[in-house]
């Protein structure tokens, strides 16, 4: 193929990729065309062509810089968009309004809308059932907003208030210590009370690790699944408490798991790691109404990891 035709084809491809938004591919083709033209003195309008290609490449590089800047900060969303996120990403509406509200707030945080998420978590902190989880997420939002000082101040305010129990505050303190850069702490965080027995301390340390656990593998030592590890999806997580929904047809598998049963060698599956631990069955009941009627609700409290 004549040189002129080659350059034309390459530039056409570059333009198409550019039009498609495939900028890396477009840049590669422009550079390919540029190299071809630079190697040959006979190309007509050589300088003009090179100038045009150079402008295209510069435009792409500028766009890449802008994209990187956008990726580093979360774009602001409209109120309508934030409400939609809260609605679409809360999955526990049928079970509990508060659980749904928590999921919505977490979704806002995950989409980088930390200020809005803070507003939601501050509403949830009034509810006993989600107080600790909401508190940890408030601190997490402050840290994400590069406001470690606000996180520390918030914690100290809670220590002075009577909103949290000693155990809850200790759990929050450990969480904050583990998530804040050491240089952000001008002095040690106030301890609500001296740590009690080591078992409680272990529980607090497990509680503060806010890792999304998506599923749990339970080893069965008796029953129809004896000797096997069965994986169950985590329907809802609150700190170290995992709620599972077990379909009615699988009820016989969990027959021997009574409240208080301790389970070792649990396998926890999270987005960042798979890890082992131990837990205890804290609640077990059969759902009496609603779309999951007949299914079993099983709560497992993680005691160590």
């Amino acid at each position, binding site marked *: 193929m004549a040189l002129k035709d080659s350059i034309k*084809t390459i530039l*056409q*491809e570059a333009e*198409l*990729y550019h039009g*498609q*938004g*495939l900028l890396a*591919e477009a840049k590669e083709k422009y550079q390919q065309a540029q190299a071809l033209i630079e190697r040959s003195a006979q190309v007509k309008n050589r300088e003009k062509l090179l100038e045009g290609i150079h402008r295209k490449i510069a435009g792409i590089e500028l766009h890449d810089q802008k*994209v990187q800047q*956008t*990726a580093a900060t979360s*774009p602001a*969303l409209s109120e309508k*968009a934030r409400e*939609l*996120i809260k609605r*679409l*990403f809360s*999955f526990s*509406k*049928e079970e509990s309004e508060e659980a749904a509200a928590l999921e919505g707030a977490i*979704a806002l945080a*995950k*989409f980088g809308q930390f200020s809005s998420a803070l507003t939601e978590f501050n509403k949830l902190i009034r509810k006993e059932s989600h107080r600790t989880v909401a508190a940890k997420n408030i601190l997490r939002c402050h840290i994400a907003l590069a406001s470690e000082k606000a996180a520390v101040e918030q914690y100290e305010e809670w220590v002075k208030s009577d909103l949290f129990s000693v155990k809850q505050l200790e759990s929050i303190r450990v969480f904050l210590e583990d998530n804040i850069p050491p240089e952000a702490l001008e002095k040690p965080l106030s301890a609500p009370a001296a740590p009690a027995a080591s078992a409680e301390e272990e529980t607090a340390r497990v509680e503060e690790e806010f890792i999304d656990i*998506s*599923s749990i593998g339970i080893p069965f030592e008796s029953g129809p699944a004896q000797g096997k590890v069965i*994986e*169950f*999806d985590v329907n809802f997580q609150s700190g170290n408490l995992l709620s599972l929904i077990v379909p009615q047809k699988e009820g016989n598998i969990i027959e021997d798991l009574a409240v208080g049963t301790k389970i070792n060698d649990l396998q926890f*599956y*999270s*987005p960042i790691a798979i890890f082992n631990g131990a837990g205890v069955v804290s609640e077990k009941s059969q759902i009496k109404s*609603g*779309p999951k*009627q007949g299914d079993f609700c099983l709560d497992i409290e993680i005691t160590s990891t």
Partner: protein
Amino acid sequence: MAIFNLKKREIECKIVYYGPGRGGKTTNLEYIFKTFRKQITGEMVSINTEGDRTLFFDFLPMGLGKIKGCEVRVQLYTVPGQVQYSSTRKLVLRGVDGLVFVADSLKVRREKNMLSLKDLQKNLKEYGLNIFNVPLVLQYNKRDLGDQGIPIMPVEQMERDLNRQLKVPSFAGSAVNGDRVGETLKECLKLTLKSLHKELKWAQ
């Protein structure tokens, strides 16, 4: 996961359009929004775009009317395709009932297709789902570009790359022209509702 209201006999399910960046996921939804107006029950929302690039997700609600005595509603989502939005993709994928994987037929995007499919498989696994068990349809998009002399992969090659093990329905089309967009969605809906019917055992 599908929301099934036994009392009201309503089912709401979630279909996610997945695939590499700039592959045509949003274009699919835009075409559906323009063309299937009778079934659209709300506005198409794009959160958030930078120019024409999805940063968070697109959302389009549809109503399919009564099927086997149940009012069926579908929510269509797209995910951002760029590599750096991995955590957003995972979040949008939560609770998915059916998938359309939009692959880019351009030769230069071959590797991106395969990486995106692997990413999908990994994210599904983290939700305890197996890609082989989730209702899934493949769309080989941008076939029209072949007519403009731009190198595209033969469908056979795309089948080998993406569908050799999955063996799911696939459609070669062009979202910008609307070619096979409707068919792709219909097949995905068919598979999804079949799966939900099996799981929920709903019937008149």
